[in-house]
């Protein structure tokens, strides 16, 4: 077996540090997911509006977030808030804000797509049954939409978890940064550690994302 330098993981508190870094990444992404999914669903409904002003505003928001690399958004929120408004926010809060704003936009577009894919006759049949617009959404449209949304939103959630690797650029020490710290601190004593440590990080991301995928599969089966 080749030397993967895995021994560095068992030096001192290294393994605990790596798990602590993983928790930082998972915490930030889960908080953002928890906020952005409900907001995204509302945004998606809003985006189907025929009002040109609402349409234009949501369109601009979505395109702005989609075009901007997440790293730029992180820099704008973390450093920009201080230089423009003198507000000093922590790296963690800046990350949650960026991930929520990004998640809401992407989720909104997914919901919009799912909603307009519901055939028009569903709305018309509901109207014929004398359902109010609100009831039409609650009992007819949303249940069908949710089913179509599951695979798409799971994709978004796992993407958000993986994108937390960028927050090290605004000073948040998450799992990837801890991995780099461990590798560099042992650069002389275990030059091969990079492979073993990154492999461990890969496994950690997998362990987090895999159950989410499995859950989605089960939900799809149950509701499909």
């Amino acid at each position, binding site marked *: 077996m080749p030397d993967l330098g895995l021994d560095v993981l068992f030096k001192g*508190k290294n393994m605990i540090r790596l798990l602590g870094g993983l928790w930082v990444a998972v915490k930030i992404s889960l908080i953002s997911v928890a906020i952005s999914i409900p907001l995204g669903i509302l945004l998606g409904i809003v985006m189907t509006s025929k*009002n040109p002003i609402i349409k234009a505003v949501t369109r601009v928001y979505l395109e702005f977030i989609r075009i901007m690399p997440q790293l730029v958004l992180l820099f704008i929120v973390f450093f920009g808030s*201080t*230089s423009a408004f003198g507000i*000093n926010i*922590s790296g963690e809060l800046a990350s949650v*804000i960026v991930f929520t704003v990004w998640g809401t936009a992407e989720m909104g577009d997914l919901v919009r797509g799912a909603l307009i894919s519901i055939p028009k006759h569903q709305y018309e049949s509901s109207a014929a049954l004398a359902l109010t*617009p609100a009831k039409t959404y609650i009992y007819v449209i949303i249940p069908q939409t949710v089913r179509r949304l599951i695979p798409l939103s799971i994709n978004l959630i796992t993407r958000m978890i993986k994108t937390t690797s960028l927050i090290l650029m605004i000073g948040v020490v998450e799992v990837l940064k801890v991995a780099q*710290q461990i590798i560099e601190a042992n650069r002389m004593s275990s030059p091969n550690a990079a492979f073993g440590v990154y492999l461990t990080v890969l496994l950690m991301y997998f362990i987090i994302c895999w159950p989410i995928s499995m859950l989605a599969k089960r939900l799809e089966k149950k509701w499909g």
Partner: protein
Amino acid sequence: MKRLKVTTIIALALAAVLGLASCGASQPSGDASSDTDKTTAVYRTIDEIKDSGEINIGVFSDKHPFGYVDENSEYQGYDVYLARRIGEDLGVKVNFVSTEAANRIEYLKTGKVDIILANFTVTPERAEEVDFALPYMQVSLGVVSPESKPVTSLDEWNPDDEMIVISGTTAETYLTQNYPDIKLQKYDTYANAKSALENGSAAAWANDNTEVIAYSLSTTGYTVGIPSLGSEDTIAPAVSKGNESVLNWLNDEITALGEEEFFHKDYEETLADTYGLDYEEELVIEGGVPAE
């Protein structure tokens, strides 16, 4: 028509929630900056730092042996050793902030740290954006070659020999400008350059002197024939542009530390394991005055 109403109501609600969220964000959660008045400067003076009892110092957390985190989650290294001493002499607690090469200037421009001690090389471009204090280290280029055939000078270069460089480094620029007759073998990565030298495909390898010194010490059979070549670059602490208060304090501190040979002690504690004691005088600047 009714559907339009539903979406309008949700749109308003959404706007309200996002508005609230941004208000929530504007509550100062950080503790560092006491002034929220945007018309005043972003940085803190030395008295404000002392009063707050804490100083924020930006360091590298993954650049062994200058700034790194050891297996017990403790910041260590040459830069960190100085940072701890600064905290001690100010009588305040040091908050280490993990910075990257690409965001060091932004941290100072926004006052999110008071001092950057992250192996920061002084350049004229950077000096327009931040203020550098007196230097505490110097680096230049170095040339490593096999012990059996050491290269100690570039002046009598054999025209058949080639020199290894890594593309895009200062070594490449320097040699192209100053020694256009030396044939260069260019590699993209450190690993490729290293194996080229070990395979004997060139006479020597030019790179940052810290890199070649560390290489020669960890690999038997190679020696640094030329430990400093080209212009010396200095490494210094940096503060926000215009922060005279902290800058003057730092300059006095570095001068005073020179009297007790502080940076030599720092070198021996943190860098000697990597660079050996032979190169101490090449790398250390004591009291802010580079040696001739």
